[in-house]
């Protein structure tokens, strides 16, 4: 049974800039979440999600050994950090924006992914909140 949820349920993200290109790494919360992410996240979906914010192409690069899906968004920062009028000049929030996309996830994959933060706090401790 699949559920429609935000990508944030199964993935972390970190993004940044290279000129006018935004680079965003999606970091799967579990091995099965990685497989789901690779199936569910497509360049077309990401492009549609950003609308006119991303003018160029979207490329995806699977990184199975570290279970990350790397996203490259071209002409995506309004001209690059020094020229753009955006508040987020270097696209630091764009990775988080990708995590708002909706994906279809098997219920047990979702349950396992949702336990990731608990496992992280158990292993490394919880320092805030």
């Amino acid at each position, binding site marked *: 049974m699949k559920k429609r949820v935000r990508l944030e349920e199964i993935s*972390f*993200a*970190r993004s*940044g*800039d*290279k*000129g006018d*290109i935004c*680079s*965003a*790494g*999606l*970091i799967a919360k579990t091995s099965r979440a990685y497989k789901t992410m690779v199936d569910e996240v497509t360049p077309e979906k990401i492009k549609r*999600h*950003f*609308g*006119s*914010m991303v003018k160029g192409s979207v*490329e995806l*690069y*699977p*990184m*199975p*050994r*570290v279970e*990350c899906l*790397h996203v*490259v968004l071209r002409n995506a920062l*309004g*001209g*690059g*950090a*020094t*020229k753009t*009028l*955006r*508040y*987020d000049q270097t696209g*630091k*929030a764009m990775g*988080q*924006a990708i995590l*708002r996309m909706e994906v279809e996830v098997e219920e047990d994959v979702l349950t396992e992914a949702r336990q990731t*933060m608990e496992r*992280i*706090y158990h*292993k*490394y*401790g*919880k*320092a*805030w*909140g």
Partner: protein
Amino acid sequence: MRGKMKKIRVGAGSAFWGDMLEPAVELVEKGEIDYIGFDHLAELTLSILQRVRAKDPTKGYIPDIIPWMKAILPPAWEKGCKVITNAGGANPEQAAEEVIKIARDLGMKGMKIGVVTGIDALKQGAHVVIAGRISDNALYVAPVMYEFDWDFTEPFVDKIASAITTGHIIECAEGCTGGMSNIWQAVPEPWKIGFPIAEFYENGETIISKAPDTGGLICEWTIKEHLVYEVLDPRNYIMPDGVADFTSVKLKEMGKNRVKVSQAKGKSRPDQLKVCIGFKDGFIGEAQIFFPWPDALEKAKRAANIVKERFDMINLEAEDVRFDFLGVNAILGETVPIKDLDYNEVGLRVAARAQSFEEANKVRREITHLWTISSVGAHMGVPSKPRPVISLWPTLIPRDEVTPEFVMKEV
């Protein structure tokens, strides 16, 4: 386990011009490191420093090099830790003169300062290497290649790829030790965050750790976060010293705050080098004003409309104008809906890019008018003056066109 395999411990002391000094000093004092690298240059910093040097030939380096070296040289000299920095910027020789003055005042007789090219300077026994625009990554690849006596021939390609990979992971210092993290709630004491130490082994494996009793967190997640940071094609992470394939890399936690990086594969160094050309490209004027409950968002929307009308009336000549609602869609942009909620407060941010300072400055003036003509309770702080825009034109040139030069100075 590793027997007598040679290893070298390299620390990352700075992620950008403006980073914290204390963790770098702590790294030298407590990290038992052989080298520390300092990255102070972003893509466009050189363009800015070149203009500084054009105005004053005795300037053009990163001014922070002076307080930084005053704090770093004493523990580094005492511990035998060599220092590699790109803070020379557009004027490494002058930066070296300043560093020599500092070293002389501190009584560090015999200290050798190498200027410009990292690896050759190390071969000549430099204690401090001051470079300009070398790649951030080279700060960490150079000491490893020198200590292990690697060259650019085929047998060392994968090993250099390992050094490039680890250099990439640590070069933003706190970027891999829990800074900017998704798991921020698990990161302890970020106010005294530890900067990373990479322990390189001759077989190409590395262990990333940090100094004891520092804040921050190193684990598989924080290392993955930085592995994917500011990367284009991860199969071909192209650096002047080689090409690393990040999809071949294996990460493994080796206990608390220790992660092993291994199995990196790579390709030979490219025939071309990247050149970043910066050029003056007008000014950006930017200001914001906040509106309180009730109807905070509607007040902000109406204020945006007022500014648009005013810009028409005064004939603003701008290349681009932008309106954001702070607290609503300022950083997530079009990916989020503008919900009609009972906000406590909403900010209106207006930004415009124009060719002249005067045009860009109209943003500041018009936001100021909103204070009195918009709606009740608005406040705007102190709008700052327009900033110059330097646009980037990156390109590639043949490697042969660049001749690295190197000068050694002694204190």
